[in-house]
Structure formats: structure tokens, C-alpha cells
């Protein structure tokens, strides 16, 4: 479904991973993250195994490592937090490079870093191989509350329209000699925001009228009737199942 809607996280392609139905990938990523999170942090080798699994998926999806790594930058704030932990946490101390660090803090930091990175990595791969539109349809298939899916769809559809509206208002301001400099401009900017709010609100009302005119009664019809085949499910679930196979010995050993 759908061309266009190129979002920054998406990498256009036709790999087997791209072709899997969105909802199977969603379930796979969710299950993978659950497995990763429930792995004891001391099982360092298990995390190495998970990382290898993700690398294999990235390879199958033909997502270049550089692309994936750059998009994992969202993780940076958590990394910063994790790096603080060994300094502030309580408990027994150990010496690393001449610094006194908390042992539990070090494990805590490792825990956040390893699990966070794997979770973000899996999500980046999901986003890179799935159109935003298909993700929403996938959520709908997975019985996500329809209202939430509808709201997200409308954000997807009207994001550009509203950005255009904002751009037009900026051009109108600037053509009449306005320059956003210093606190004196804030009043004007606030009024622009107000006008934008009213315009989007009124548009919402008109869109609702148009929907009602075509028989909308509160539920979006699910149009994409294709259910996932057994083979597609097993392909998608191969990731969390293998991860589980790695996780189980980590618990028992």
C-alpha cells in the first residue's frame, strides 16, 4: 500500500522484511522487546546474541548499518542518564581507571544501555521497513483502540496541510514587514498560534461534516482485508522465538 509519505525513519525497499504485513512485525518487535527486558542483566553473552539477531534482520532487510545507527540517536538522553548511574548509585564501590564507581550502578548502567539499545534497534528496524501508514493499519488490525488509530491517521494526513498553513501565515507576516526578533515579536507569534488553532479547529469541523455526509458513524471501516498467512507469521515471529531460545538458558544457567 501507498507510496509517498516518506518519513525520515523509513527506508524504501522491497526486501522480505519490508514485505511482511505490518501487524506481524509489530507483534514480533513487541515480543522481542519483552524477551530482552526480561533477560537477567548478568547474562552478558545473551545480549550479544540478541545484537547478532538484530544484525541478521538488518541484513535481511538490506538496511545499511550506518542508516540504522544514525537513527538510533534518539537513545542519547538515556545513554547520558545511564552514564551517570555508576557515580550516583549507592552500595559497594570498585575502582575503574582510578575512579570510585558503584558496582550496582555499573550493572544498572549496563542494564539500561544494553536493553535500551536493543529495544531502540528493533524499533528502528521496524520503522525502516514499514510505511507509517501500514504501521497504523497494523495497529488497527491488532485491535488498538480505533479512536487512537484514527487520531494518528489524521495527524499523518493533515500534518502537511497544517504545516502549509503555518508557512502561509509566516509568509503573510513577513511580506508585511514583520521580523521575529526579540520579545516584542512574541505577541504576534502568539496570535499566529491562536489563529492556527482556530483554523485547524474549524477545518476539523468541516472534515467531520464531509465524513458524516459519506455515512461515517464513528467507526472507520477496515479496508485492508488481507490477513497474514501462517508463513508470514512464522517468518516475523522467528525473531522473538530465537531470542527466547537465547533467553531461557540465561535464566537457568
Amino acid at each position: 500500500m501507498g507510496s509517498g509519505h516518506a518519513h525520515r525513519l523509513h527506508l524504501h525497499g522491497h526486501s522480505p522484511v519490508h514485505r511482511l504485513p505490518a501487524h506481524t512485525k509489530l507483534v514480533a518487535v513487541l515480543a522481542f522487546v519483552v524477551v530482552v527486558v526480561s533477560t537477567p542483566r548478568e547474562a552478558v553473552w545473551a545480549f550479544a546474541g540478541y545484537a547478532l539477531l538484530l544484525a541478521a534482520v538488518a541484513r535481511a532487510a538490506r538496511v545499511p548499518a550506518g542508516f540504522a545507527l544514525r537513527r538510533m540517536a534518539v537513545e542519547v538522553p538515556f545513554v547520558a542518564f545511564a552514564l551517570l548511574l555508576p557515580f550516583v548509585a549507592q552500595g559497594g564501590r570498585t575502582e575503574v581507571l582510578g575512579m570510585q564507581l558503584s558496582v550496582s550502578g555499573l550493572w544498572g548502567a549496563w542494564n539500561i544501555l544494553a536493553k535500551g539499545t536493543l529495544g531502540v534497534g528493533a524499533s528502528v528496524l521496524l520503522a525502516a521497513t514499514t510505511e507509517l501508514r501500514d504501521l497504523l493499519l497494523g495497529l488497527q488490525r491488532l485491535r488498538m483502540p480505533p479512536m487512537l488509530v484514527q487520531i494518528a491517521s489524521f495527524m499523518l494526513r493533515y500534518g502537511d496541510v497544517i504545516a502549509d498553513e503555518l508557512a502561509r501565515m509566516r509568509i503573510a507576516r513577513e511580506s508585511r514587514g514583520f521580523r521575529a526578533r526579540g520579545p516584542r515579536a512574541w505577541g504576534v507569534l502568539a496570535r499566529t498560534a491562536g489563529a492556527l488553532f482556530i483554523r485547524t479547529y474549524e477545518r476539523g469541523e468541516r472534515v467531520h461534516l464531509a465524513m458524516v455526509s459519506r455515512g461515517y458513524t464513528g467507526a472507520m471501516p477496515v479496508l485492508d482485508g488481507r490477513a497474514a498467512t501462517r508463513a508470514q507469521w512464522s517468518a516475523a515471529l522467528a525473531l522473538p522465538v530465537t531470542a527466547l531460545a537465547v533467553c531461557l538458558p540465561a535464566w537457568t544457567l
Partner: protein
Amino acid sequence: MTTDPLTTNPVPYSLEVSGLAFAYPDGHQALFGVDFALERGERVALLGPNGAGKTTLVLHLNGILTAGAGSVRVAGLPVDRAHMAEVRQRVGIVFQDPDDQLFMPTVREDVAFGPANAGLRGAELEARVTRALERVGMAEHADRPPHHLSFGQRRRVAVATVLAMEPEILVLDEPSSNLDPASRRELAEILTSLDVTVLMVTHDLPYALELCPRSLVLSGGTIVADGPTPKLLADETLLHAHRLELPFGFSPR
């Protein structure tokens, strides 16, 4: 007209408005007793100055606004709560701004929205969508997001969204506004090729003359003239009294 269209009148009017009056909740009376009827297959223009009540009238035709007094009948069915779903399927309204009308992420889903609400699914739905898009010459754009289309293309898709519901009557609010001459002509060709009843709200008198053999003039909330378009447009005193103006140098003969 009698109350039972099936037994006494084999071909009921497509649209029958009688004694329709309406006041907005803020007390502003917009319609004061509107009467007219459209035969099946007629193409009629609804002319009138700004603020005459044209949009208000249109919103009564599929029950978005409910008459304060009087009644609206579509193909013999009264527009009321009991017949709302049926009426909305039979009256297709194309709103003025296509961005209000096209709210789904892709053209195909948007065109499918109406018939899907009416319960169509699968191959039948797919065929309906393709046919509607072909009729407006937009079939090759089915998978594109509406906001990447030009204004004229969006207007055509908006017409398709309504055609897909196979309406008894097509109502267009200012269909030629914001179209360049070529798009205007293409839309005219599409509209003349359809065999449905058309009610076209417009300020564009030459367009009305080209497309609609018959015209109604709504002014101050009542129908002040109803007759053949060339005759109405030749009546200078009528046009002048109701703020209607032909473009410079245009002669209706």
C-alpha cells in the same frame, strides 16, 4: 407528490424541497421557505450572492442540518432520522475545499470510505473504487496521498469519493472555484458525462450556462427565480437585484 412514492408515483423527484425554513442556533434566520423540485437526471444550477443561504440549503439535503419547518425528500424518501443512512448514500455532496473532503491517507482509501460505510467489502468495493476513479480520470493516482495532488486533481478525486457511493443526486458547492480554465473544462466534461441528477451551487454564471439548462436563484433565503438558465442570465434587472454579475464582455446569447 403523495406520501407513498412506490405505489402512486413510479418516478419520484430526485429532490423535493418544500417550505424549508431554518434558523441557526444563534437566531440568524438563513432560509425562509424554500420550494423547488428536481426531476431525475436534471442538471440545475443554484445561483445566489454571498450569504444567500446556499451552503445552508445544501447542508439540509443530506440531513446535516435539520429543517426548522418544511421538508426535504430524496427520491421520495423523507430526510429524517429513520432514513438517514439511505439518504446519505443517495445524496453525494462535494464540498468546496477538497482538503476537507479528502481525509484518508491515500486516494484509494478515501474513495472507498463512503461505500465501505455502506457495507461494501472486498472485490466489489475495489471495483466500485476503480470505476469511480476512472470516471474522473484519476485511476493511476489511486495509491498517492491526496495532499501530493494538485488542486484540480484533488477536486476530481473529491468528485470520485462521492460517485463511488453511486448517488441519486450529486450536489457540488462551488465546483469551479480555484480551478484553472483547463481543469474547469475537464470538470465540466466529467459532469456532463454522468447520468445523475446534479445540483451545482456556483457564482460562476458562464459555467452554469454551459452545464445547466435550468437555474434557481436563491437570495435572502428564498428562491426568487427558477427557469431556463439562458433566460435568467438575460434578465438584467433580476441579476442586478440579486448581486449577480456576468463577467465583463460576456453575453449569454
